Structures are given as C-alpha cells and as structure tokens.
C-alpha cells in the first residue's frame, strides 16, 4: 500500500491546504450540481482540472490513470441507457430485433460518467499534492473535532505498518499453500479457507489491540494527557482568500453556464 502524495515543488503543492480542501469540495459540489447534458460546462470543468493537474507536475498520465478508478462503478448507471424515456434509438445487432436505447438515458449515463471522472481527478489532485499531516492540520483549522483527527492521524501512521504485516501474513500463507508431490488436489474446503483467513484477521486485530496499549504507553511517557496539545492557527493570507473567492465565483459562473446549456 503506497500513499498518493508525490513531493514536487509546483505552485499547486504550495497552496494552503485549507484553500485546497475548500476549493476541491466546492468544485465537486458545483460540478455535480450541473444538470446532465451540459457538455460545454463539462468541457470547461474538465479543462480547468486538467490544467491544474498539468501545473502540479504530477504527470498527466498519472492523474488520468488514477482517476479511472471510479470506472467500474459506472456499470451501476448503465441500465439508464436502456430504461430511459423516449426518444429511443436503435442499434442494429446482427439481425433483428435490434437493440433499443434511450437517447435521454444515454446522455444521463454519459453525464454521470464524466462527472464521476472529473470529480475523482479533483480528489486525486488534492491527495497527491497535499501532505497528509497538512491535510489534518487544515481539517483541524476547519474545526473538525480534535479527538477525531487524533484517531485519523494515528490510523494513517499505522496503516502502512499494519498493511506490511498483512502483506507478510499473506505471503506466509501463500508459501505454505502447496500441492503435494504427485497430487493435483489442493486447496482444502471453502469453509476451511475462510476460517483460516478469519484466523489471520483475528490475530491481526489482537496484535493491533496490544500494540495500541504500547502506543498509549509511549504517548503517556511523553506527556500525553488526553487533551490535544495547543494547535497553532495561522490565519489565511489575503491572497489565499482572494484566490479562493475567485475560484468559487468562477465555479458558480460555470454552473450557471451548465444550467443554461444543460438538459
């Protein structure tokens, strides 16, 4: 398991994390508010995100590839194409009866796919250009409760340690999953395999619970009292605020364009 953050010295990396969080959220909200079939607006949304990705120097291939993650879910929207209202189109398939599809349904389907794709691009950009600690600080400055952020911070810290443990467990299991010489049968029963996997999960949880005791001891011995240490809050600079405001205004304009041109 690897984190997405890619250290670079681009302008996008340097933007205050709070600005990036708010902007990303606003971007996704307005993109999703745009009605279906508003192609010109979609193109502008996409172009915007595309150029931000370019200026982040992450490598456009990286962003595009990564953003295709949402693709499989698109299948959930596929039925729209065939169940939507008239007008119906026809695709000739081999011979009659040909496949009928709904034009409106198809537009909706395409709109959903595009929105999903561009939204993931935005999320990828946020995660890849912002260090997770900065993200946490940003959330704390945006008044997300400290208890919760402590939990998430610890989780992130141990995620990689524990996922390595899981990887090793899986490797250990694989290395003992052999076929006897001269036999073709192997694998045990389905129920047994599930049980073994459950045992792995159980031991993973126990080890984690006991590890958390040690982590707690370590925190205590360095003065942890249960109260979060005082957070330094820097105010947003004027130019950050201006940039954010300009961005949001642009988003509203784009959305209006979408409302006018969309279905």
């Amino acid at each position, binding site marked *: 398991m*690897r984190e997405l953050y890619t250290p670079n010295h681009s302008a996008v990396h340097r933007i205050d994390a709070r600005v990036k969080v708010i902007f990303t959220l606003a971007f996704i909200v307005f993109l999703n508010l745009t009605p279906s079939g508003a192609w010109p607006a979609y193109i502008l949304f996409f172009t915007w995100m595309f150029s931000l990705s370019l200026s982040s120097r992450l490598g456009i291939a990286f962003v595009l590839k990564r953003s295709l993650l949402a693709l499989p879910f698109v299948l959930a929207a596929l039925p729209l194409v065939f169940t939507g209202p008239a007008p119906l189109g026809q695709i000739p398939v081999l011979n009659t009866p040909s496949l009928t599809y709904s034009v409106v349904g198809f537009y909706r389907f395409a709109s959903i796919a595009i929105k999903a794709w561009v939204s993931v691009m935005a999320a990828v950009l946020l995660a890849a250009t912002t260090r997770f600690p900065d993200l946490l600080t940003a959330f704390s400055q945006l008044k997300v409760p400290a208890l919760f952020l402590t939990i998430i911070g610890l989780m992130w810290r141990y995620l990689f340690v524990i996922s390595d*443990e899981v990887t*090793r*467990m899986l*490797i*250990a*299991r*694989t*290395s*003992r*999953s*052999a*076929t*006897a*010489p001269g*036999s073709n*049968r*192997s*694998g*045990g029963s389905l129920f*047994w395999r599930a049980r*073994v996997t459950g*045992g*792995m999960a*159980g*031991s993973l949880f*126990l*080890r984690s619970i006991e590890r958390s005791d040690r982590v707690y001891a370590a925190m205590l011995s360095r003065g942890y009292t249960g109260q979060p240490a005082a957070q330094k809050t820097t105010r947003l600079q004027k130019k950050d605020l201006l940039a954010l405001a300009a961005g949001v205004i642009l988003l509203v304009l784009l959305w209006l364009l979408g409302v006018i041109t969309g279905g």
Partner: protein
Amino acid sequence: MEPVIEISNLSFSYPDGKQALEGINLLVQPGEKIALVGANGAGKSTLLYHLNGIFTGSGMIRVNQLELNKNNLPRVRAMVGLVFQNPDDQLFSPTVYEDVAYGPTYQGLDPHTVREKVALALKAVHMEDYAQRNPYHLSSGEKKKIAIATVLSMQPQILAFDEPTAGLDPRARRELIDLLLELQQTMIIATHDMNMVEQLTPRTILLNHGKIVADGPSLDILRNDRLLMTNGLI
C-alpha cells in the same frame, strides 16, 4: 550430485521501481547450510521470497531441476519451506495443531496422513505437548519453533529462514541453533547474527544493494574486515 537450487542472472524490482536484486547467480548443493548476510535493505528477504515463487523476477530459478514458473509453483512450494522473521506473521490459527496442519490440509491430504505429518513435525522441534495450545500465548522462542514445525510438516527438502534468532533470549537462541544443527535439510538463512553464522553455516553469501559481493566459506568472509566494512557490516 545435481544442485538443489540453481539461480542464474536473477534480477527483480519492486512495483515502485526500487531495484532489490541484480544479476544473482547461485548454485546450492543438497544438504548445504548457507548464510545470507548483508546490511538492512541489502535484499536478503527479497531473495528468499524468490525461492518459492512469491516474487518472480527476470532470470531463471530451478529447484530440483524444476524450473520455477506458474505451472510448477505449487510443487516448488512443497519443496521449499519458508520461515518468516516474525512468527506472528506465520501463526494464525486458534491452535498450534491447526497451524501445523495448514500445509498438509491445503495439499488435500486425507485427515489421517495430516495427523501423522503434524505429529512428526512437532516431534522434530520437541513441541509435542503444545498441540492444543493457542500459538498466541507462547513465548517468542516457542513461537519460533512452532513456525518451523508449520514448515516441516510439509516435508520440504529446502528450508529458508528469515532472521531466525532476532529477538530471542540467549537460551532460546542457543536451542534454536541446536535444532537447526540437527536438521538434515538444505538450509538458507538470512541473518545479522554473525555468531550463529560461524557455528551453523559453513558457507556465506554476502549481499549488498541487491548484488552478491562475496560467496565462500563463512570463516573467510567473517574474518575479511575490509569486505565487511565496505558492505556496511562493521
């Protein structure tokens, strides 16, 4: 005699591009006990993982004349038993018995044979009385022995160990070394424990940044201070 392991020109990079092995060539004769040494990150574990096909790099690996490829994988795994550094990674069943029985059960053997193999394996590590214990509650030395039993129960011809003595107290370490001296199988042991190397493994292979930089009698290599120095060992 034919070599039990034959590696030629093996290279491997992790998915993130980190090259962990580079042009490894190696011949192992039946019954040899070999130490694999090198600084942290030298590539020892990665090399061990290749022996039973958990990773597959470019180049060729033959185990008992059987070339390692997709089709042969399950059979090669039955020949090479891998023991991990941390026995907790390897012991995941509610009882010692079930853990040792995993390999034979997966092989699809009948319950009677499985029972026999488990008994033999536990006997080899002198842990017959522990069958019904929960592996989670054992001391680290005991866990290590059970981890070895889980591999022995598959009766592999080759044993591969990843840092077997790490974290053991002096007596547990002593007992483990004695056990390994007793066993007749071919053995490859990745370790930082140079005293164990002296006592247990006549031959040593020294890795550095994924390459074999020395391969020869352990005593020669361990006394070659310049060699050890340039390879981050002293």
